[in-house]
């Protein structure tokens, strides 16, 4: 019985050929199905049909909006735009027939000759035209240095980075302002004496009698001495007259001010933010309270009011005779504000750290600052790179607010370029705003892409 049954049974010994996937799952059709139609093709019940129809309607609507916007932008920027003004008729180059120009009625597109005419103003502001090479040189140095640090395949990145943070600001300051600051030889020589003695005390207090009391401060005292002496040397350097024409910050403007404010804010906010974040997590109640109040205060008020405060109240806070110019006051406001935001990002990284790391550092006998510098911060900061870059992007965008307290940054310069009646036309405002928006977009989008790239790279290196 069993025997016979077994003979009747068909047993496949070779695997059947795999059937091709259904037509609507592969190729162009499959892609279209997955990405477009699957969400709007279910008509099996009333509710689902309603949903599918709604989805189809939305798809059509958004496709229409997106498509018309893209077409409009391409037409506005390239196709219909006026590109040149060969006869030098200025505003009439962008006028329609009814307005007295030559363009057909209903024409609405970018007026690029206006931008070309205002390009110098929008990038450099009222900076003297013969001295523009100094700004360009500063920019080229900065760009080369930045690329060198960012591109991971180049050698000596660390050294270049240190130079960018120490030597470059001095060069930039000298090039942009013209250097030749005034200096009091008596006070600076006494300062140098003080700093030399500080360095000596720092050396002595590593051991011996002074060491009993000051050992832990030895490094800090030495550091203070070095900082003071380098400050004095810096001042002496800046007082050297290289024969450059002095250019006051009142003559700066446009992209130049935007970059100066953004880069200063970014460079200062990171170290100050780290100190504030450490202070907020310190086990000393006074330091904790102070840092918390500082951070929450600056985060709780709008940047505009901070800038107003910086521009009207800083002159009141300073001793008589001391006065900062408008740019420096704005910079102080931006620094305070961005340091508080940076502190919160860094604190996030510190809190995300495994407690074992802190304990291990302590068990190794490292001092607080050693463990922070060597163990905690390198890890915590890598964790929050996306947050740091986001803060940078926010800060870069926020620099536009300095135009409200009367500095001509990129946006402010663009806005005041509109006031030029010799280019007045209905498309004047929209053209310059579009141009400024494109510049901001390029910077911010670039930063966010770099952050995503870094994040991927780091998450790869972290996952093994």
């Amino acid at each position: 019985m069993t025997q016979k049954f077994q003979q009747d049974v068909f047993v496949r010994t070779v695997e059947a050929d795999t059937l091709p996937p259904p037509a609507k799952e592969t190729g162009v059709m499959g892609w279209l199905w997955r990405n477009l139609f699957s969400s709007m093709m279910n008509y099996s019940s009333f509710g689902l049909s309603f949903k599918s129809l709604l989805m189809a309607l939305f798809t059509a609507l958004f496709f229409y909006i997106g498509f018309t916007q893209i077409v409009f932008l391409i037409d506005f920027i390239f196709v219909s735009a006026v590109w040149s003004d060969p006869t030098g008729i200025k505003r009439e180059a962008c006028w329609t027939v009814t307005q007295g120009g030559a363009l057909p009625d209903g024409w609405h597109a970018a007026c690029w000759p206006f931008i070309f005419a205002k390009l110098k103003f929008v990038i450099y502001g009222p900076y003297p035209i013969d001295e523009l090479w100094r700004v360009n040189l500063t920019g080229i140095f900065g760009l080369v240095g930045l690329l060198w640090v960012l591109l991971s395949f180049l050698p000596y990145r660390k050294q270049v980075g240190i130079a960018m943070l120490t030597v470059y600001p001095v060069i930039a300051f000298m090039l942009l302002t013209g250097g030749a600051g005034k200096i009091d030889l008596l006070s600076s020589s006494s300062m140098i004496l003080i700093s030399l003695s500080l360095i000596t005390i720092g050396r002595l207090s590593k051991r011996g009698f002074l060491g009993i009391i000051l050992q832990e401060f030895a490094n800090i005292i030495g550091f203070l001495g070095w900082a003071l002496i380098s400050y004095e040397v810096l001042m002496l350097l800046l007082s050297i007259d290289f024969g450059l024409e002095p250019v006051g910050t009142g003559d700066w403007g446009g992209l130049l001010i935007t970059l100066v404010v953004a880069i200063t804010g970014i460079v200062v906010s990171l170290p100050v933010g780290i100190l504030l974040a450490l202070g907020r997590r310190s086990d000393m109640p006074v330091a904790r309270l102070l840092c918390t109040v500082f951070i929450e205060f600056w985060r709780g008020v709008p940047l505009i009011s901070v800038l107003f405060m910086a521009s009207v109240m800083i002159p009141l806070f300073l001793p008589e005779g001391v006065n900062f110019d408008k740019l420096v006051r704005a910079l102080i406001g931006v620094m305070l504000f961005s340091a508080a935001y940076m502190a919160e990002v860094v604190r996030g990284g510190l809190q995300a750290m495994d407690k074992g790391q802190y304990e291990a550092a302590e068990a190794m006998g490292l001092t607080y600052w050693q463990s922070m510098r060597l163990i905690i911060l390198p890890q915590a900061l890598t964790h929050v790179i996306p947050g740091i870059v986001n803060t940078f992007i926010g800060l870069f965008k926020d620099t536009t607010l300095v135009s409200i307290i009367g500095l001509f940054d990129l946006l402010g310069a663009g806005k005041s370029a509109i006031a030029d009646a010799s280019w007045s036309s209905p498309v004047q405002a929209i053209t310059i705003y579009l141009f400024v928006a494109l510049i901001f977009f390029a910077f911010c989008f670039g930063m966010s892409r770099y952050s995503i790239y870094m994040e991927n790279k780091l998450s790869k290196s972290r996952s093994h």
Partner: protein
Amino acid sequence: MSFDSNNLSTLIRDSRVRNIGYQIIIILALILSVWWLIDNTTTNLGNRGKSLGFGFLTQTAGFEISHTLGTWLFDYKVGISTYTDIYFIGVTNTLLIAILGIFFASLIGFSIGIMRLSSNIVLRYFATAYVEVIRNIPLLLQLFFWYFAVLGLLPKARSKLDIFGGLGGLNITGLYTPAPVFEAGFGYVASSFFVAVAASIAIIQFSKYRRDQTGKGLNLGLFVPSLLICLPGIVFFLVGSPLDWSLPVFKDTGPIFKRGFQPDQGMVLVPEMLAVLLSLTLYTAGFIAEIVRAGILAVSKGQTEAAHSLGLGSGITLRLVVIPQAMRIIIPPLTSQYLNLTKNSSLAVAIAYPELVSIFAGTALNQVGKEIEMIFMVMTTYLGFSLITSLFMNWFNSRVKIVER
């Protein structure tokens, strides 16, 4: 001697003692610098012949403010209203922008955030493009764009664009809509509405209680919405329709300077407010969209799969499984976006919408010159907003938080 020095050195090496020492140094440094600042400030104020004090708040203000909710509520009149009124007008207008902005930004932001996760490529790419463009362009630039480049294209003051079938109109002086005029007896309608709200809350609470006790709630259906609409409606007609509409009046005849929309007729939303609201809403919506997307993605896929395997449809899964868990992640960053929106409303100073910074720290400050007091008041107000919002959101957050074992 050696004993003493040893003792001293142990004392100095004791981290507790050191910490106290550090803190004393910090406090001393703080006191010194505050004293230095105060000393400088008093000298400077003395040199300029100024003094501190809030006496200016009772002075009358002598400048025009464009028609907004604040000026209407506090009945602003040049030469009669005081700087206290100006302060409250500013606060009102800031709050108005903040509340409207938060509402619309959440609406758009949640939609865009969900669209970014759609399987439909059109919706997905639209949302992505929106988020990338909006987030990478400064808010102030967007504000200028809406105010100067878009609203500047509207019809001039002597012509209009009809909306709502001619009931309202739009031109460069603003958006004109019919205004409600409350007559005597409207108080009854308003109080009946509050009674309806109270009754609805009581009924819902009772139903919840019943469900907790017996497992079966009341079958409320459409009872609550109909109660909310019908009770005030019935009272409204009983007291004889105490509501009238004041329609905007547009004149296109007569002297040229009197043409256009007439003042004090209907309700006007000034273009500054429209521009601030548009730019703030769209800008913040871009950030909210990213928060929502990240929150939904953070809910583990197993949750969705488990819900599907229990037989729940995708809508119910989203509503009952994914969103409650995503909200937990979304709420803290959402709070900070709401606060950002409130603070960013101060950018309205750039186009002279009369909010707190613009009229109080701007125009009024220039008139009175009390920098310290006025900026102190403005900053304290914003700090207060921040504090209240974060307290409310913390309370809300603790309600939606999953109770862990």
